[in-house]
């Protein structure tokens, strides 16, 4: 192995010794990543519990006195907001982004470690403010995660006082946290790569995180802008989004504002947000598949271009969420076209993942199982997106359970499958131990089959015309009795899947202390993070020497080379010498 001398990036950081400096006020990207991940998983559990409550009401209406329409809407809203922003965005970028970027590009740390630390604590503050809304009078907001005005800030919607204010404040704080983290991620990727790490030698994980972070930096401002304006509408009576209206029969002092304007802003953020979650997942799953199939990712360049193309296009498709919002209907032509165009690079990614398996040598490890599960669920979710993107097909389906099922498949189940794949894949690097394989397989089967049995039937409730965000259907003629039994069975599946996640948590805790020791590079992977001197990597990542990169990230099963992988920091001269080192 070849390491360059220390001169390039002197290890200036002094190594903290006290417990507080090491684990609490840490500026080490790895500790911050773990802090981010634990916080995100914790709020994720809250959101999971909320979804269980929603499902109980939908599956067995009129059975639980602690769920009324107001609290149901609060569960819906908080579940959605937490899952999308405080879990997925934070875990994928704050957690995995933080952990992997410096290690995968060969840097000692993020370029602004202090800012990185601030980013986590600001994120934690946003989570605390968010959770505080459960304890204010009126409870958290129940306006739906889209927070559409006017109803969001008016009586008639639960949590229209303290709840919505805390929600908007929390979002603003989150955006500040994300911006601090995001500036770090892009700058580190652009400016702190190791020698020889050209852009096209970067693993797809980094490409996904990089593009997603840029999307986040450019898209979150739209959410910030709408949150500020809505806050002013609520608190000082401006009329940005509020037209002249009544509220429960009482006239209000607003005039002339435009609720649709909010929707444009929200979705100008909201659609890129889908890809902020999806692109890191695309990247990570590519690396997991390549590593465990012992084969280079098929069409690497196409994969990079597709990530960049999807990122660019994601800014011109937002109004496909608004086909029936009352905006100028002629916009429908434009946005349907851009939306269906974005399906092309996305489809190519799916093809390339499958083609990577073709003539591979597939190790069916737990991360690989989740990755394959992802291809299946993502194909399903992507294809149903073609229904909703095509403006005229959206007419009968929008605002029904079809939409709910679609975005849960594509934005819930799929990224979460990748998150699990990534956790099982990188856990040995983080802790030096494997997660328990038996529990992992059980977790996979229950999650994969369980989630499909939740969401496949849910699409059909949507075809039937069952609207979303309904507390109960009540007496409705066009909905047959059997739809209720279907709902009950969905609820049972959901509860089982929910409980299985506790087994996963147990696995994480147990394996951290008792798991099988893994060694530094258990999957025989090529990327830099597996080539650290110590596992888990120590502060400064590389000890005395920063690696030099000689090749791309996918030299698996190179013909004529004995080992079936060549790490990125192995120079051409060293490859021959590795003949006796042995393969997988």
């Amino acid at each position, binding site marked *: 192995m070849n390491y360059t001398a220390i001169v390039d990036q002197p290890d200036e950081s002094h190594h903290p010794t006290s417990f507080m400096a090491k684990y609490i006020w840490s500026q080490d990207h790895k500790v911050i990543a773990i802090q981010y991940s634990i916080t995100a998983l914790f709020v994720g559990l809250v959101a999971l519990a909320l979804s269980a409550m929603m499902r109980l009401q939908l599956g067995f209406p009129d059975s639980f006195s602690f769920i009324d329409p107001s609290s149901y809407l609060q569960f819906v809203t908080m579940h959605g907001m937490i899952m999308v922003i405080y879990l997925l965005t934070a875990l994928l970028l704050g957690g995995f982004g933080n952990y992997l970027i410096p290690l995968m590009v060969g840097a000692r740390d993020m370029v602004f470690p202090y800012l990185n630390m601030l980013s986590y604590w600001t994120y934690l503050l946003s989570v605390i403010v968010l959770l505080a809304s459960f304890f204010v009078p009126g409870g958290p907001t129940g306006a739906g995660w889209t927070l559409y005005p006017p109803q969001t800030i008016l009586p008639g919607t639960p949590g229209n006082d303290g709840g919505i204010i805390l929600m908007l404040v929390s979002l603003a704080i989150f955006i500040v946290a994300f911006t601090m983290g995001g500036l770090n991620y892009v700058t580190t990727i652009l400016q702190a790569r190791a020698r020889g790490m050209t852009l096209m030698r970067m693993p797809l994980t980094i490409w996904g995180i990089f593009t997603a972070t840029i999307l986040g*930096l450019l898209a979150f401002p739209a959410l910030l802008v709408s949150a500020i304006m809505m806050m002013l509408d609520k608190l000082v009576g401006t*009329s940005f989004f509020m037209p002249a209206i009544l509220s429960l029969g009482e006239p209000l002092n607003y005039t002339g504002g*435009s609720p649709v304007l909010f929707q444009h802003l929200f979705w100008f953020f909201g659609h890129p947000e889908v890809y902020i979650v999806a692109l890191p997942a695309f990247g990570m799953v590519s690396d997991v598949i390549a590593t465990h199939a012992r084969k280079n990712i098929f069409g690497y360049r196409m994969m990079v271009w597709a990530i960049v193309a999807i990122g660019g296009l994601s800014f011109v498709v937002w109004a496909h969420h608004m086909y029936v919002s009352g905006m100028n209907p002629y916009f429908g032509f434009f946005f349907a076209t851009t939306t269906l165009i974005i399906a092309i690079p996305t489809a190519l990614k799916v093809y390339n993942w499958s083609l990577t398996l073709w003539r591979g040598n597939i190790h069916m490890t737990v991360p690989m199982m989740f990755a394959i599960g992802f291809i299946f669920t993502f194909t399903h979710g992507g294809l149903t997106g073609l229904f909703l993107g095509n403006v005229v097909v959206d007419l009968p389906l929008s605002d029904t359970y079809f939409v709910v099922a679609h975005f849960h498949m594509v934005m819930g189940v799929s990224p979460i499958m990748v998150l699990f794949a990534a956790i099982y894949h990188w856990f040995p690097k983080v802790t030096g131990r494997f997660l328990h394989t038996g529990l992992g397989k059980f977790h996979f089967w229950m999650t994969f089959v369980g989630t499909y049995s939740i969401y496949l039937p849910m699409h059909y409730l949507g075809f039937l015309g069952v609207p979303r965000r309904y507390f109960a259907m009540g007496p409705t003629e066009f909905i047959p009795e059997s739809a209720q039994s279907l709902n009950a069975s969905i609820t049972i599946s959901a509860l089982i899947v929910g409980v299985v996640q506790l087994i996963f948590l147990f696995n994480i805790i147990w394996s951290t202390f008792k798991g099988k020791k893994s060694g530094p590079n258990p999957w025989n992977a090529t990327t830099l993070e597996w080539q650290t001197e110590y596992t888990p990597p120590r502060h400064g990542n590389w000890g005395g020497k920063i690696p*030099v990169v000689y090749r791309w990230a996918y030299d698996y099963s190179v013909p004529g080379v004995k080992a079936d992988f060549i790490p990125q920091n192995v120079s051409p001269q060293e490859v021959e010498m590795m003949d006796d080192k042995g393969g997988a």
Partner: protein
Amino acid sequence: MNFFSSIFRELTEKPWLAQSAETLDQELIEYQPGSPGKTGLKFFIAVVSVIFFLFSVTYLSRSQYADFQALGGEPWSPLYQPLWLWANTGWLLLASLSLHFAVGQVSEDKLNRLLGLLTLSVIFSLLFIFGQWVVWQQLSQQGFVINSNPANSYFYMLTAIHGLHLLGGLFALVRVLIIFSRKVKLDILQRSLVLCAWYWHYLWLLWLFIFALLTASPSTYNTIAAWCGL
């Protein structure tokens, strides 16, 4: 164009092809450790620009509603001849310029001039903020409060957010000086001051844009809005 062609060249590279030893060596020699501060600041400026761009788009869109009454453009408008705003523009420009010249004074023998220029810059910046506050007072005394019209709402909101960014910059500048007072090398101080100067120049340009937007005449709004198809 060069930038794009080099990006294009880089993105069409075939990274799996074996490279000759010379190419690899060349790469290693050409490698330059980057300048994270500048890159970070560029991205931050991009983020702030997006925020204000989106505010402006909503402003233009909102200006097309019947209840909108522009603050400038007509002799009876409150911001028809906004002398105070012009004065504030001057203060911010002076703050920006003194920072700019301060960067050139970073050396052991010019420390007094450096400190003088930095103090001036802080004072001018504070004068700008004070001046903006005075304009707020004037407007609200004339009855133009934040919720009386969307144009007013935007005026208060945009000036406040711009002012907050300036305060954030002042906070960063003071932090740089405090760290410097604990004996940090001059080249690091210079690098930090260059970033501050850039940021001030940007805030001044941003202010010019906001100023123009907030005091334009209704017909200008209509023209731009029509041109954007709003």
